[in-house]
């Protein structure tokens, strides 16, 4: 192996310019592969993190996945039955017997759950109205399932416990209505029921539509306002392991009977979009390396053509065909290894530069940095793909070199 390596290295160093061009292709290919992969995976992870952190891992709704089966169908499952004039039951919407169902949910390991009653309401202040999604919450439980407490800029969720007639609104609404903590606003439910509530807390998420369109009150107050006593219409659940959401949701749905939707199910279209996006991204960045591998193919093919006489003499001396193949495969490996190493370093440099870029996305108040992912898999993937391209590019000329018949060359040279 050492002798093959020496010959391979000698061939490459003897053709410095061509080797450097090939090397440059691999270096740039690996660097861009890494930078683009880091950016795309970073944005994907950032997106998923926001999705997972800012939305419930599982939400239990006050509805059923499948419509109720008519008793006649249960009694005679194999019969041909036609049911006419079915009238839906009229009842107060919401999850019935929610404390018992909450107890079942909270008995599951590795999760935190909070009951919520949410509905549309209008906030009226000084003659101005704003439609909001008003959520009735239990502050102690809400803290375990939401990042709302971390987003509070004035007061805290506990303020609702201290003041049952309190309301927490977003900074957007505060700015829009020129409110301030302590202001009293009128909250009007869908059926016209109005209650004066005092602003006891302000949150800011950075998402202006959320900051203007969400408000929180105590669960009891919401039940009373919406006329839905002893009802909630969803249970919000956070898991220690968000990626177990699908399985846990199924267990909960089987236990409580109501539709339980995991964040994975809710975001199925987005997740499949991310997969497609990753395929497109890796195809594009891999194309750079494939183009670079043509440079290597060209260099090594030229060396094989130029060194046909040397190959003949080595084979006449006693080198096997596989020894000759190894020499040229090693050339690909050497270019690949050096190119990958330098490419990874350049890629890390590019990532450092990208990390400093500041952007202000539309609709977001805060300045954010480009999300980059520094996971080790992408370094391995970039290097492995570069090595694979280099070996593939060198394998054809190597095979051709291994097939050189010394007599054909010696006879031609004589």
């Amino acid at each position, binding site marked *: 192996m*050492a*002798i093959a390596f020496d*010959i391979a290295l*000698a*061939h490459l*160093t*003897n053709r410095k310019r061509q080797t450097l061009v090939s090397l440059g292709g691999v270096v740039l290919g690996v660097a861009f592969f890494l930078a683009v992969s880091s950016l795309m995976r970073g944005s994907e992870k950032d997106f998923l993190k926001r999705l997972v952190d800012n939305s419930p891992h599982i939400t239990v709704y006050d509805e059923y996945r499948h419509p109720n089966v008519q008793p006649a169908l249960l009694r005679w499952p194999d019969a041909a039955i036609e049911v006419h004039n079915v009238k839906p039951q009229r009842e107060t919407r919401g999850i019935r017997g929610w404390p018992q169902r909450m107890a079942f949910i909270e008995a599951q390991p590795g999760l935190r759950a909070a009951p919520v009653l949410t509905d549309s309401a209008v906030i009226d202040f000084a003659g101005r109205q704003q439609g909001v999604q008003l959520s009735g919450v239990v502050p102690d439980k809400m803290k375990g399932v939401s990042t709302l407490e971390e987003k509070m800029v004035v007061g805290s969720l506990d303020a609702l416990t201290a003041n049952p007639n309190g309301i927490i609104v977003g900074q957007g609404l505060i700015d829009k209505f020129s409110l301030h903590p302590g202001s009293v606003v009128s909250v009007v439910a869908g059926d016209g029921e109005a209650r004066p509530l005092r602003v006891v807390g302000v949150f800011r998420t950075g998402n202006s539509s959320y900051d203007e369109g969400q408000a929180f009150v105590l669960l009891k107050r919401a039940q009373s306002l919406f006329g839905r006593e002893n009802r909630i219409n969803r249970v919000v659940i956070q898991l220690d392991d968000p990626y177990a959401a699908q399985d846990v949701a199924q267990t909960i749905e089987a236990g409580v009977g109501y539709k339980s939707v995991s964040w994975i199910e809710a975001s199925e279209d987005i997740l499949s979009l991310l997969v497609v996006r990753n395929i497109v991204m890796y195809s594009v960045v891999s194309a750079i390396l494939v183009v670079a591998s043509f440079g290597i193919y060209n260099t090594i093919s030229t060396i094989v053509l130029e060194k046909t*006489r*040397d190959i*003949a*003499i*080595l*084979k*006449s*001396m*006693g*080198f*096997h*065909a596989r*020894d000759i193949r190894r020499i040229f495969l090693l050339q690909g490996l050497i270019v690949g290894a050096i190119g990958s190493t330098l490419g990874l370093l350049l890629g890390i440099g590019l990532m450092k530069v990208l990390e400093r870029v500041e952007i202000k996305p539309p609709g977001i108040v805060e300045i954010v940095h480009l999300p980059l992912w520094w996971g080790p898999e992408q370094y391995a993937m970039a290097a492995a793909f570069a090595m694979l391209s280099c070996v593939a590019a060198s394998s054809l000329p190597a095979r051709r070199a291994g097939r050189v018949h*010394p*007599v054909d060359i*010696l*006879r031609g*040279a*004589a």
Partner: protein
Amino acid sequence: MTEVMRAEHVTRTLEGEVPVTLVRNVNLSVESGEFVCIMGPSGSGKSSLLYLLGLLDAPTEGRVFVAGEDTSTFDDDRLSDFRLARLGYVFQFHFLLNEFSALENVLLPMRKLGRVAEEAARERAAQLLARLGVGDQAGKRPGQLSGGQRQRVAIARALANDPLVILADEPTGNLDSVSGTNVRDILRDLTRELGKAVVAVTHDANFASVADRRIGIVDGEVDLGWTGARPAPSGT
């Protein structure tokens, strides 16, 4: 003197629409310490016979024995190993690897065979170059050497693994007369002093003048007018 190489009814035919016979039914024996020259007109099959004797090409009929072993039964790998250990080659255009120094060129077959340690191999390579009068050129690359010096380095490389037979294809064909005479004398001395057998293809009558035996080849066949002709030792 023992027999180191023997060709029995060796024929080499190139297949094709019109088959071409390069070598026809050649019988030949070479002994250790013998200097054999193969001569003949251009295209007569001299080099083809040398490639067959040197196991670079396989006969379509007949067998080649080296050191008593029937090489017709060998596969490609064993032939390569056999060439590496038992045979040495010198070609008209020296065929040194330009990226390596003279010493490294001589080291190549030893490193490939791996029979001696790196240090010992370097020492032997240096000794061989010194013996052939190019010891002071050991660090130079082929491009920095004259034609005669390169051919001496090629001979040193052929001797690296202490072969039984040196096969030389027009070794002086690309050299001036002085260098050619030097190379001739070196090869002859190898037979006298080291007991190596040398089989050389040549057009050069001066080169052939010191041979123990000259074999004529015409149209691929041994010319009977040459076979067995063992001229008296010429002295120098």
